[in-house]
């Protein structure tokens, strides 16, 4: 998933979560209030029923019911049997009267606290709301069915859940649409910025007419592109001028040096002249390497990337690598050479491999084995070169690819380079849209440098 899309969906999710949570809180609160009110309504009905009964019977002075009172109760409870269940108890819980509609079931004995509570009486009559009322020395318990209220509440809950789900989905859709809409100008900026490369640095992002954050962002980016364009132009001009201004005097110095070396000289003078020419050669190489790096930085490298068979390329390199290694008293093994095709510039990639090889040769002990492998894994062409040298301390693993960074090599010519070989190797690799990195070997001491570029 690309970063922009994930930002859009993150925004949509956040929006949907917020809306859904708000709606859910409101609905749950409503549901609680409605539930509470319904129960309170049942309680009030129970109280009203008690008030009515109280007008019909006198408060007993003892926890007993006389026959007239029982008759009144029986008559009253029969009339109200569709709505209420009755039970009269002594304070110790002994049942003095029970309405006929309770059948064999009983209400819980009175608690003595005149409370209202919910209870489930099985098998009949089911969920009840019970009120306890003291009348003289007896407790009257009046219960109304909670069934209607419960049904109402569960329907309400179902409705609320459905509503929440609809709101969640709806707000997700709205949020996605909204965040896409909101990010549209950002995407326009992104597209333009991505299209601006070394080749068309003159292009700019169109600044929206509005005076908002987006217009400011576009302006800031354009300022940045102005500065980059200036820097690029300067690099190009410097490269062109440095080529000429440095190379011509260097050419003359070399020509004169060679002429001098050809004249009749004492052995000491001849050595001096040769040393001079060698130093001029080094200077020339450093200048060329630096120009190459600055050109690569500016995206101005003339790379000719075309599809080539990798097997033949690797085989050729391996032959030369083996020759060079054996000349230095080391061994070279081609561990694997996969078949495949990849877009690359053979001359430049060869230079990368030769740079890696010289590096490995510098740090390998006499008789050491250099192992090269070329494999295709998941559409990427990976080449690795492992030596048997001392390896590199982990904090330095990345630093060795920096410019002018040199590690103390075992062999004499380690002093000779300018520390640009690996930097150039990395630059060329990156121009191939690849990666170049180093690891210490897990199996033994030694450095493994890995080069990975996309295969065709």
């Amino acid at each position, binding site marked *: 998933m690309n970063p922009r899309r994930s930002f859009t969906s993150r925004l949509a999710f956040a929006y949907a979560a917020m809306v859904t949570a708000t709606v859910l809180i409101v609905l749950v609160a409503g549901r609680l209030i409605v539930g509470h009110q319904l129960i309170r309504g049942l309680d009030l009905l129970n109280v009203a029923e008690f008030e009515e009964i109280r007008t019909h019977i006198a408060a007993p002075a003892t926890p007993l019911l006389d026959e007239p009172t029982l008759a009144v109760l029986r008559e009253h409870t029969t009339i109200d049997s569709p709505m209420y269940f009755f039970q009269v108890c002594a304070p110790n819980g002994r049942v003095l009267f029970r309405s006929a509609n309770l059948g064999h079931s009983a209400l819980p004995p009175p608690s003595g606290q005149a409370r209202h509570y919910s209870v489930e009486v099985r098998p009949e009559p089911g969920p009840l709301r019970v009120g306890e009322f003291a009348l003289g020395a007896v407790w009257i318990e009046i219960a109304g069915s909670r069934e209607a209220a419960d049904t109402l509440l569960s329907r309400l809950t179902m409705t609320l859940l459905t509503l929440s789900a609809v709101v969640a989905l709806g707000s997700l859709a709205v949020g996605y649409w909204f965040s896409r809409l909101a990010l549209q100008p950002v995407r326009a900026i992104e597209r333009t910025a991505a299209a601006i490369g070394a080749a068309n640095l003159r292009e700019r992002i169109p600044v929206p007419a509005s005076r908002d954050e987006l217009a400011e962002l576009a302006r800031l980016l354009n300022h940045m592109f102005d500065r980059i364009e200036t820097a690029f132009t300067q690099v190009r001009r410097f490269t062109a001028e440095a080529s000429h201004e440095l190379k011509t005097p260097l050419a003359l110095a070399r020509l004169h040096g060679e002429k001098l070396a050809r004249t009749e000289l004492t052995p000491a003078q001849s050595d001096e002249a040769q040393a001079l020419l060698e130093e001029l050669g080094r200077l020339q190489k450093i200048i060329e390497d630096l120009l190459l790096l600055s050109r690569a930085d500016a995206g101005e490298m*003339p790379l000719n990337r075309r599809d080539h068979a990798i097997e033949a390329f690797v085989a050729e390199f391996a032959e030369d690598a083996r020759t060079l290694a054996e000349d230095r008293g080391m061994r070279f093994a081609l561990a694997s050479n996969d078949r495949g095709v990849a877009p690359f510039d053979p001359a430049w990639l060869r*230079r990368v491999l030769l740079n890696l090889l010289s590096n490995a040769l510098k740090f390998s002990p006499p008789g050491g084995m250099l192992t090269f492998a070329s494999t295709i894994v998941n559409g990427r062409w990976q080449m690795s070169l492992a030596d048997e040298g001392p390896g590199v301390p982990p904090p330095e693993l990345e630093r060795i690819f920096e410019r002018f960074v040199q590690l103390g090599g075992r062999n004499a010519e380690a002093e000779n380079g300018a520390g640009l070989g690996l930097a150039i190797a990395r630059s060329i690799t990156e121009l191939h849209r690849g990666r170049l990195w180093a690891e210490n070997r897990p199996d033994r001491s030694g450095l493994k440098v890995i080069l990975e570029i996309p295969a065709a």
Partner: protein
Amino acid sequence: MKVLIVEDDRKVGSFILSGLAEATYTTRLVRSCEAARDALADDTFDAVVLDLGLPDGDGLDLLRQWRAAGFNEPVLILSARDAVADRIKGLNLGADDYLAKPFSFDELLARLRSLLRRQATVKATVLEHRGVSVDLLARTVTAGGIQVDLTNREFALLELFLQNAGRVLTRTMIAERVWEASHELETNLIDVYVRRLRKKLEQEGDEPLIRTVRGSGYQLA
């Protein structure tokens, strides 16, 4: 042999002029496109050494005009510009060789000689020199009548030496023709291959077959 040198830098120009004169070439030095056009109009030359960055124009434009006008003599480009991009462009426009500045005079001389003699290159399929025989079709090599096994690189190197028997081949020339790139110069690969070739072909006590020319390169003796 008459060589036209087109080079705007006075010092480099006169150095090449005197160097080529010492090597018994007849030379003429001009410093601008204008003067180069005039020189080619009123004289004939066997070869041209052409600098690209000239005060009144680009050497590549000059080359294009010459080739279009039917001037077929070898042209060697000498330039301080980027070797890879301009080399390809120059060679496509009809240059015969390309040398990047700073260069060594021996290199220039070796390349010029090679260009001037190119017309005489042998097109034989069997090359022979001092008992070494190479069959280019069968890809077999014999030295003193005995078959020698060579790797591809060694074979290509030997073929190059035999095609240019007696001429000095600089390391850069060898790299360009055997490896088709000049990055091998970063290593001593060429010296190693020459050494291996010598070991396989030379008999002990013989005059060396491949001679080292100090400071410049190698020569098939």
